[in-house]
C-alpha cells in the first residue's frame, strides 16, 4: 500500500511517502504504526508518541483502530493546524 507522511513525521522519516507491503498480521492502522516504528531510527522518532499520530485512509480521516483491508493509501500526520 501507499503510505504517506506529513509535517514533522515526514521530516523525521525523511521521505514524503513510500510503497510498502506490511506482513499480513498487520491488520489495523495502529498495528501499522507499531510495525513502522521498527523500520529505523527516523521511523521510531516519528511514531514515538502515538497520542500525536492521526491518520487518513483513502484520503478520509480515520481512527487508528481502522482496518487496513482493501486500503490503497494511508497517510500519517500530527493533529492538523490549518486556518
Amino acid at each position, binding site marked *: 500500500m501507499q503510505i504517506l507522511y*506529513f509535517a514533522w513525521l515526514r521530516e523525521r522519516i525523511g521521505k514524503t511517502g513510500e510503497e510498502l507491503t506490511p506482513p499480513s498480521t498487520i491488520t489495523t492502522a495502529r498495528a501499522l504504526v507499531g510495525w513502522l516504528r521498527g523500520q529505523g531510527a527516523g521511523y521510531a522518532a516519528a511514531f514515538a508518541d502515538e497520542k500525536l499520530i492521526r491518520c*487518513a485512509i483513502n484520503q478520509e480521516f480515520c481512527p487508528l483502530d481502522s482496518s487496513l483491508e482493501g486500503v490503497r493509501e494511508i497517510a500519517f*500526520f500530527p493533529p492538523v*493546524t*490549518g*486556518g
Partner: protein
Amino acid sequence: MRLVAVQEQDFDSGALLASLNNGATGGIASFTGIVRQNETGTLAALRLEHYPGMTEAALEKLADEAATRWPLTGCVIIHRVGLLLPGQNIVFTATASAHRAAALAATAYLIDQLKTRAPFWKAEETTGGETLWVAARQTDHDSAASWHNEAQNLPHGTGRL
C-alpha cells in the same frame, strides 16, 4: 457562487465579496485569517503544508455542510499554502444568504470546522533559522465540537449552491 481553492497566491477579499452579491443575496459575511507576528517578534514566516487531493475534498465537504445547515446563496473557502509572511492573508471564508443570521453563522461554522477537519499543518520559521511545528489547540477542537450542540433556530438549506 461557490468557490473552494487551495493556492499559493494571495486572494482579493474585496473582489470575492463582490462576487457573492447576486440577486438573491441580502447579506454577505466573511472571515479573513492573517499570519500573526508572535509576542517576541521572532516569526520570519509561516510554512503551510497540506495533503493535496484530500484537502480540496475536505473543504468541499465543509461547503456542502454549510449549504445544508443554512440557506446560502454563495460560499467561498480559500486557504493559502507555502511560505507566508507576517501580515499576509492565510485563509478566507465567506458566505452569502438572504438574511444576516445565516451568513454570519455559516461563516463562523466554516472557519471553526476548517481548523480541525482539513489536513493543513503550520510550521513557524523563526528569525534564528529554526523550524517549529505548531501544536494543535484544544480550544480549536472545542469550538468545532460546539456546533454539534448548537440549537438550530434558523431555516435549513438544501445543500446545493
